[in-house]
């Protein structure tokens, strides 16, 4: 096999599964260690640099990091028989509660306003317009304003925040958190937010002479229900995202007693839980698909069920029954899933009689769409056959070089953390374009490598692996939360449980780095490794070497770290990264220091001098 190129930043970055999975590549273990050390403000700033909205994301993120987390794989086959304590979840193999730890940093930090960047005294004279005041636009503004760019954000709603403010209900995300984190950005200085200003023409914006325009308008149009009786029942059938926005801005405060929510995504979950708090007594979610295939995150489904909301599956809406202009209920066709030879799912009628559910109101949350009625088709921005703008996947530039897209408006509905990631990349593109550089020439992330050795067998990180199961996030009493839409449901971890959960992190960024020249092949590392990750074996092709490992490689997508042939026997060292605990025992047991624990801090390149070509100064 070819020895692993550990000099490439991606190799060890990939070992930090959570950071690799995070669209914004937040250095997760780094901030979790800071939380464990009680350095909440520092943990917050590590987050803030990468994902801009730690407090908001710590409550609402879609957490792609957690399914990737190594802890979930490591606990497999280990914890199923354990009896969980009162504070623990399970017993099942579960990842670290990365998302809710982010909130611990945000909740417990000191005043960090002094650590926030400020606009430089010397502006660079360049003006940038951001259309839409959501997470993507705010990220672009945050990255570019401190560099001296002058930013104007156009927001149709009364306050900036976009989706985070208009659609995420207050019982999941308090207004104060949004105000605080939007405030850190607008407080930078040279950012003007034009609220209540809906942009109705891209050409008009371009005519104002901006050097670049960033479009971050989200996916603002809810898909409507197409069923008989829909029109007649208009007064009681609401589009989910519009209804949520009206609730958020206080325009709607009540809903009927019996509510049906259509749809199986996270918006449907927000709708049903909101309805429950605005007078809905009999609230149910009705979904076409099965429970497992629903688009909503598993925890959002569980939270809805926890609040006494049933989810009914395999029911396709058929008609709204209206009498004398009053909605009586909806009928549904019972279906089952059938799979064809290619594994594609088809929902076919079971032949059973239709089911009818009485209701007073229906909330339709069956999807969101992009809509760009305000972009003239001759503004230089090309649109594809699905009426979506043609956007470069790396630079986020459209066919009009001055116009960039990001967030949901670029490639359709995703979530906040993706919008942030898009914003960072678009900001890099804008910065490079306006400093006359090639947008395609994008630098690799910066990597800081440092040995963690303190004493002979002491490491600067805590390598005593916690055996705890995932901790439950405590909830506010349901009697209080179901009464008001403004009472936050989750209380968040306190300092003690936050520490205990932080200790479950395996510090995957502290890498096992092997120096083959120092190895004397004593087998000490093989013997001590609790997970049987390490093998010394003759060289061969990867597929065949994987067969010869000390313990079987369960996940071929996980890297195999392979060394140069060793001096004495010509064998290679092959380490399966899959379930390594990063406990450092291999390095503690190594008599020659051939194994060393080194922290790989990978930082993505944001807009600024770091993303530009190094300037050679005159000697």
């Amino acid at each position, binding site marked *: 096999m070819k020895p692993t190129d550990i000099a490439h930043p991606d190799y060890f970055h990939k070992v930090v599964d959570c950071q690799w999975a995070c669209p914004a590549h937040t250095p997760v273990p780094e901030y979790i260690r800071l939380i464990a050390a009680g350095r909440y403000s520092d943990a917050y700033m590590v987050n803030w640099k990468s994902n801009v909205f730690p407090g908001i994301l710590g409550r609402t993120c879609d957490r792609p990091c957690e399914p990737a987390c190594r802890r979930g794989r490591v606990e497999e*086959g280990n914890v199923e028989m354990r009896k969980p304590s009162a504070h623990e979840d399970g017993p099942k193999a579960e990842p670290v509660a990365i998302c809710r730890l982010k909130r611990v940093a945000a909740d417990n930090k000191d005043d960090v306003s002094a650590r926030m960047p400020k606009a430089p005294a010397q502006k660079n004279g360049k003006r940038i317009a951001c259309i839409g005041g959501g997470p993507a636009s705010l990220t672009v503004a945050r990255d570019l304003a401190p560099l001296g760019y002058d930013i104007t954000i156009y927001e149709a709603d009364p306050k900036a925040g976009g989706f985070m403010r208009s659609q995420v209900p207050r019982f999941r995300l308090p207004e104060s958190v949004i105000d605080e984190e939007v405030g850190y950005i607008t407080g930078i200085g040279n950012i003007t937010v034009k609220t209540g200003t809906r942009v109705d023409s891209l050409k008009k914006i371009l005519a104002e002479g901006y050097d670049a325009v960033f479009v971050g308008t989200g996916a603002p149009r809810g898909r409507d229900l197409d069923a008989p009786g829909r029109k007649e029942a208009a007064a009681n059938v609401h589009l989910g995202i519009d209804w949520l926005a009206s609730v958020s801005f206080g325009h709607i405060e009540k809903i009927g007693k019996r509510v049906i929510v259509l749809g199986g995504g996270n918006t449907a979950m927000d709708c049903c839980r909101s309805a429950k708090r605005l007078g809905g007594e009999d609230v149910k979610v009705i979904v076409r698909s099965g429970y497992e295939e629903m688009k909503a995150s598993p925890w959002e489904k569980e939270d809805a069920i926890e609040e006494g909301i049933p989810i009914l599956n395999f029911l396709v809406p058929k008609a709204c029954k209206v009498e004398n202009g009053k909605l009586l209920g909806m009928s549904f066709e019972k279906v089952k899933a059938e799979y064809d030879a290619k594994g594609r799912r088809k929902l076919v009628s079971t032949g059973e009689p239709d089911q009818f559910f009485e209701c007073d109101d229906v909330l339709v949350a069956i999807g969101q769409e992009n809509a760009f009625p305000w972009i003239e088709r001759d503004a230089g921005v090309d649109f594809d056959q699905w009426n979506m703008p043609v956007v470069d996947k790396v630079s986020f530039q459209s066919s009009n070089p001055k116009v960039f897209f990001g967030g949901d408006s670029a490639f359709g509905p995703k979530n906040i953390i993706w919008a942030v990631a898009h914003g960072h990349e678009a900001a890099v593109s804008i910065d490079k374009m306006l400093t006359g550089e090639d947008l395609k020439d994008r630098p690799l992330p910066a990597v800081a490598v440092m040995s963690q050795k303190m004493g002979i067998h002491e490491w600067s990180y805590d390598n005593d*692996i916690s055996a705890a199961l995932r901790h439950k996030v405590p909830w506010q009493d349901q009697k209080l939360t179901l009464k008001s839409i403004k009472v936050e449901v989750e209380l968040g971890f306190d300092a003690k449980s936050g520490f205990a959960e932080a200790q479950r992190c395996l510090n995957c960024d502290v890498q096992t780095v092997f120096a083959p020249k120092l190895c004397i092949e*004593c087998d000490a590392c093989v013997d001590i490794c609790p997970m049987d990750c390490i093998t010394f074996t003759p060289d061969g092709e990867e597929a065949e070497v994987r067969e010869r490992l000390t313990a079987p490689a369960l996940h071929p997508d996980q890297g195999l770290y392979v060394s140069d042939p060793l001096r004495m026997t010509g064998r290679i060292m092959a380490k399966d990264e899959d379930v390594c605990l990063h406990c450092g*025992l291999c390095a503690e*047991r190594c008599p*020659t220091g051939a194994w060393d624990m080194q922290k790989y801090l990978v930082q993505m390149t944001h807009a600024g001098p770091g993303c530009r070509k190094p300037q050679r100064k005159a000697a």
Partner: protein
Amino acid sequence: MTYLAKPKLHHPSLSKNQAGYTRRDYEGKISTLCAGCGHDSISASIIQACWELDIQPHRVAKMSGIGCSSKTPDYFLGNSHGFNSVHGRMPSVLTGANLANRDLLYLGVSGDGDSASIGIGQFAHCMRRGVNMVYIVENNGVYGLTKGQFSATADKGSKSKRGVVNSDEPLDLIGMALLLGATYVARSFSGDKKQLVPLIKGAIEHKGSAFIDVVSPCVAFNNHAGSTKSYEYVRQHNEAVNRLDFIEGREEITADYAPGESVTVYQHDGSALRLKKLAEDYDATDRIKVMNYLQEHAARGEVITGLLYFDSQAEDMHQHINTVDTPLNQLGAKELCPGNAALEKINASLR
């Protein structure tokens, strides 16, 4: 050494043997030996062998004397019986235990100091008596606990860490074991588990005194140029005479060697030892030839490893002295003191 206990978490695929235990269940406390010590690899090999043989941990008694090697029983088989005896006295304590309870599996772990110096007499008589045991010497050629003086097994002409040349003849434990009637004699290297684990398994199943000399480099005091017990020297001079496959009774023997390349020998319990010949003229069942072979090759500076000698008709101490099948510690007063009539009968037979 490390200050942390080894994490309890294990590989998701870790499986249980027929006794219902995982390999990790055969581990002991965390080792306090120096990092890289060959002894830790031997402990790992013992753990592996016991797991593979489905051994019930509570049916094992591990005995040792004093020294780095004699500390190691604390680091494997944490749920077995153990006795850490006086320096060099492991063989007699073990012999006594074996006499009292012949049902346990006896594992004696010793070092070159414990067995070749202070305990040399004990070693000799234990072999001579054919005590049914596995006698493992973790042989590193130095006194590690007292900072690296030559031990009695250090080769003549080898150099200490400070450059002093050893002028004394080494004590040849393998040669002595053969002379004194050990019926299973092997030598291996801590850095070669593929060879060591089957040798330990064969020794455990062997009924009689099984002796394994394991060259186990001392990283702190005997792993330098000029040493003949360093990782590098042993790897360069290791000449294996055969490769052992241990086959448990229930497994079918499938021949994947060409005829003539391997021999299969059976033990009392029906388990089979299949030896793949690496040295053409080597016959592990001919004691005289084996002794000659070892002397010749040792003179050339080679470290001969493998299953060196094996007697499939071995007898153990209990057969020699004709004890009852029931372990003595399970006999009651009635059996042990059969009364006057029985005594009279015995006395009469002697008149």
